[in-house]
């Protein structure tokens, strides 16, 4: 018995030693990587988006021999992860991100030259101290989907070209007709998100929350729009459960019982593949004061101190080149960020056209505000998560008035962003 235990003990120690030995090996090999082989590219959701970046990285390896490993990190943990890597003194060479942390400030490579060489829309990137540290890699936009079957059953129409864009009142009266004539459960759903709500606010003439003097404020239209949003959440037109209880708006639309869904371009590939019970279509969003969408999408960043800055630069330059970028956008179903790209989408190409028109016609407030807010994450010590959505949820739960909600958002932003 004692022998047996001794043997187990020896075995374990051997395995442990072997294990730590292999760790040393891999450390050693990653040191050599630094001098010229595998470069790591951190992304999230690449598998969901048709492995677009993985395919492009493989193509790059074929052409140049430089190996790139695409690391798929859970979306909600991306910022934490990279912040930790920077803390450990081992930043990745490249990353595709949607959010930032102040710990990254000063660690990002200046990519101005690469972006200018390849006609990237630099005004959609993040510029700090005249250095473009995060050019856009792909673009998403808020948009609207309709259930064509329900619209036809009720005999109501929706705009099919930019000449007859509808107003919110027209949309709501169409929804009411559909609710009367069909067995639709609710009139419309909107994702529980700041981003979608902001598009709604802009369409109603709001200028968002902006800095005036030494505090954040907003215009009168924001309040009117929020009050309207509260009215729509009456459990007939919009179900309260999506915003207050986190019910999944996307699956409600997919069930075919909701005629209108306000979400964004990232849903197109999913809907094209996974909706078969009814016909759906991307439509132009209604307006009240102005036409507006809200932009989103990923930024491309490279880190100083990875030891692979030069290779990273070369890869980014390659990726933004017209023909490579078009290929990437086709695989991933992305809206392009370079000025001359012509992308041929495989799934639902007409839907992408609508989004492109929607962005072109949108009030400039959308892109300005988004960039400013993202930049704040990088340069401010604190950042606020989804202050607007949180406060609106409290208002929807009758815990506070719309006025209080607006006041709270102003205060939170002032506290976080005013030095």
């Amino acid at each position, binding site marked *: *018995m*004692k022998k047996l*235990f001794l043997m*187990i*003990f020896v075995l*374990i120690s051997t*395995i*442990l030693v072997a*294990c*730590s030995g292999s*760790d040393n090996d*891999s*450390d050693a090999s*990653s040191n050599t990587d630094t001098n010229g082989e595998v470069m*790591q590219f951190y992304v*999230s*959701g690449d*598998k*969901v*988006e048709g*492995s677009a970046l993985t395919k492009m990285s493989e193509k790059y390896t074929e052409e140049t021999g430089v190996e790139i*490993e695409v*690391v*798929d*990190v*859970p*979306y*909600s*943990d991306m910022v*934490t*992860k990279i912040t*930790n*890597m920077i*803390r*450990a003194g*081992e930043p*990745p060479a490249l990353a595709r991100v*949607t959010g930032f942390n102040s710990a990254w400030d000063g660690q990002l490579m200046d990519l101005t030259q690469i972006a200018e060489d390849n006609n990237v829309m630099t005004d959609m990137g993040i510029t700090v101290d005249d250095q473009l540290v995060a050019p856009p890699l792909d673009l*998403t936009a808020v948009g609207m989907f309709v259930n064509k079957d329900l619209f036809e059953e009720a005999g109501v129409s929706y705009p099919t070209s930019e000449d007859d864009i509808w107003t919110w009142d027209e949309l709501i009266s169409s929804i009411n007709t559909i609710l009367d004539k069909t067995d639709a459960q609710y009139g419309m759903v909107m*994702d529980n998100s700041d981003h979608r709500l902001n598009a709604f606010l802009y369409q109603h003439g709001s200028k968002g929350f902006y800095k005036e003097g030494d505090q954040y404020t907003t215009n009168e239209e924001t309040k009117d729009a929020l009050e309207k949003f509260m009215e729509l959440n009456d459990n007939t037109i919009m179900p309260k459960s999506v915003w207050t209880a986190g019910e999944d708006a*996307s*699956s409600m639309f*997919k*069930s*075919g*019982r909701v005629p209108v869904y306000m*979400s*964004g371009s*990232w*849903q197109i590939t*999913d809907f094209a*593949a*996974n*909706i*078969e*019970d009814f016909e759906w279509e991307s439509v132009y969003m209604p307006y009240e004061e102005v036409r507006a969408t809200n932009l*989103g999408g990923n930024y491309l960043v490279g880190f100083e101190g990875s030891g692979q800055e030069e290779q990273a630069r070369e890869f980014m330059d390659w990726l933004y080149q017209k023909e490579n970028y078009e290929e990437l956008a086709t695989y991933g179903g992305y809206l392009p960020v370079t000025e001359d790209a012509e992308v041929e989408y495989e799934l639902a190409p007409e839907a992408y056209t609508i989004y492109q028109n929607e962005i072109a016609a949108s009030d400039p407030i959308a892109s300005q505000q988004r960039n400013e807010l993202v930049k704040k994450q990088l340069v401010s010590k604190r950042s606020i998560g989804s202050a607007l959505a949180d406060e609106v949820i409290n208002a929807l739960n009758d815990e506070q008035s719309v006025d209080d909600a607006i006041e709270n958002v102003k205060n939170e932003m002032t506290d976080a962003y005013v030095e």
Partner: protein
Amino acid sequence: MNKLNDRFSTIMLTTALFIVALMYLFPIVWLLLSSIKPGSELFSYPLNILPENPTVDGYVYSWSTMEFIKYFINTLIVAILTTVLTVIASATCGFALAKYNYKWLNVFLICMLATTMLPTEVIMTPTFSVILDLGLYDSLAGLIIPSINTATGIFMFRQYFMTVPNDLLESARIDGANEGKIFFNLMLPIAKPVVITLAIFSFQWRWNDYIWPLIVLSDPNKYTVQIALRSIVGADNIDWVLLLSSSIISLVPMIIIFIVFQRYIMDTSATSGLKG
């Protein structure tokens, strides 16, 4: 009369058992059935339990996108090594706490028990700093070492060894056995139920661990199954087809282990229950 009562209670208890078993089974069966539905049926209304056009495309897709073999090997290395080391560390420590009579031992015990009051999340930052300074960041050893010591395990062994009569140790000592021999040849075999219980718990903890591997690992070649699964959830939408079939695949090794060790697992609960 007595017989009737017996039968009545047997029926009632069995019914209760069936209801509880169904409650446990239902989500898993639903997950399994959903994973063989094509994407278009997942959210259709009215919702069907049974798939109309069953397909294994999801599995093929998921197996080709995710490198499961690699993730399984990583997770198994971590889970097995941690489990073996945890059992050895807890058993020796529990034995000392139960059977030696030094002045400060109980203070140690209290200190160890106090650590159970701190959730892992609270001590995560200091632990991470230690791991970082030891150069264990981004290595499987960084997952294994901090997880070896568990107050729960030590406490389980201590309580168990307390019930072993001291006379047994005394007679072994009189027969000329040294402390090492007593521990390995006498105490550890007696404590087999605890060893197996702790091993099963520890293995499960490590298999399902998510937050710590997420922080420590950055190289995708060292990813454990749970992190790999999580990376399927995208920013604004989720690929349900991929997620459902991958979740099922990730369950398979656990089920195999259960089938193989079923006898011991069942045995454990019975004997440890008696002892309790």
